[in-house]
């Protein structure tokens, strides 16, 4: 939709630089630039992304500055280091 031409905020997702608008959630900022897959599912390591967008389903959980948080409930801040959750990093029985 329409931007107000105001300030922007930069953060990184999986090492890639993403530009967002102040007040956006991490999930919406990533969706806006076409990023759909945010993590791998625990058993099949299949790609998953935003599903409920209101903090219920936990499908959009990512690692933000070292802490797992739902991307849809976390506001963007300058310099956030956001990483996808990978199944292989979770160990055999997470």
């Amino acid at each position, binding site marked *: *939709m329409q931007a*107000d031409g105001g300030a922007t905020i930069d953060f990184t997702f999986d090492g890639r630089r993403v530009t967002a608008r102040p007040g956006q959630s991490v999930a919406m900022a990533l969706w806006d630039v076409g990023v759909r897959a945010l993590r791998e599912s625990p058993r099949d390591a299949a790609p998953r992304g935003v599903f409920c967008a209101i903090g219920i389903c936990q499908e959009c959980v990512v690692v933000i500055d070292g802490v797992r948080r739902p991307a849809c409930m976390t506001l963007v801040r300058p310099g956030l280091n956001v990483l996808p959750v990978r199944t292989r990093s979770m160990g055999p029985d997470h």
Partner: protein
Amino acid sequence: MIVIGAGPAGAAAAVAASECGLSVLVLDEARAAGGRVYRAPDSWLEPSGGARPAPTEGAKLRAALAGCGAELAFGHCVWHASRLLDGAGDSPRFEVSAIADQRSMRAHSLALIIASGTIERFYPRPGWTLPGVIGLGAASVMLKANGVLPGKRVVVVGPGPLALWTAKLILDAGGSVAAVCDPNPRRAWTRLLPALARHAGPLARGGAWLAQLALAGVPIFYGWDVRAVQGARQVERVILGRVDGEWRPLRGSEEKMIEADALCIGYGLAPATDLYQLLGAALRYEPIRGGWAPVLDRAQRCTTAGLYAAGDSAGVLGAAAAPGTGRIAALSAARDLGRLDDASYRHRIGIAQRALAGVASFGSAMARLAEPRCAAAAWVPDSTIVCRCEDVLAGELRGAIAAGAQEINALKAATRCGMGPCCGRVCGEAAGALLECAGFARERIGQLTARAPLRPVPLSALTGNFDYSDIPFPRAADT
């Protein structure tokens, strides 16, 4: 008093309770009042204005709430609520725990109004875990609050008005809708027309949505549903097929393949019952109220003393009825706390109940279109993921049912379905539907047990900041 939820029901409850002289605390996990239906737009969208639906309703609600004197705590996600055992006289009866900005807080009250709204009902479909498949509620949040389109070419699926409204929002935002699909036959809608005739306003709005979709050339398929979603790493195609009146696929019938990069899907709304469960309130399965809903008297009182239900969490009736149930819940609480005498209580509650009856009939007519139907879940192939958190397949659930699971918590213990971080809010309905289709009654199947924390809470939020020296160690005994 504590009110959980600042949507149209919670806001009306807070305003009415404040008017009765009660001291009110409102908790809501969103950053502003409005609930899902009147959700406030992100700050960066504010200056741009534009075609947001019902901005005046949301703005009015936020102004009334801000001016009523209640203490407002936004960004507070409630993760626990409990009854205090010694709740005699003026000592508090309830304790509510919420997390805000990664810190946990607790609040106490004599009365508690739950206005926590709904959760969306989902039935699993092959491929529905592909990124790009989102709920109808998610789509409305994206479009209304965030100004983000679900995709470039979107398929919208669901029974009742929510799917049509989502498609309309996509068109308003400049997006393209490849198809709208309602599993109900067209006659399910026309059957409702007599009941809707006296609701000219909503009826006209619905007509305007249909006209807008027709003008944009969006096809609407009645009696169709999703057979499968396909794509490599995200949605690329949606396969649609015909269904019968119970939303069961008609085998051997025609299918359509539609190229799309997003699918918005949902099969109706169910009351969010976890807080009622935690507080020991009785619940009953009533499809017309959206499934499991709290047992209430005529004035929104739950079976737990001091606990009241408002809005769609009390039984799905829609946004128009929500302020009415909120007001009634607040009046009942004020009466029970001795802040309203009998005569003025009876007078005010009579007015509120008559007003509610006028709008509730529209809500229940709409709810009829989206009643839960177990056949809509029962047909999915064994290889379909039902529980998204734990990757549990339909075939594994069927195996556990064949091996003797008759209740939803037995099914959970056997398969891990519902054991993940969503606590079964996404898969619980489908798991229950598989049991129902295996021949068990919903009363027997039951609900997934609600347990704190209702949402994932970081351990650090509970422990707070302390040093090693803060830990009390008993002095070693002198020997």
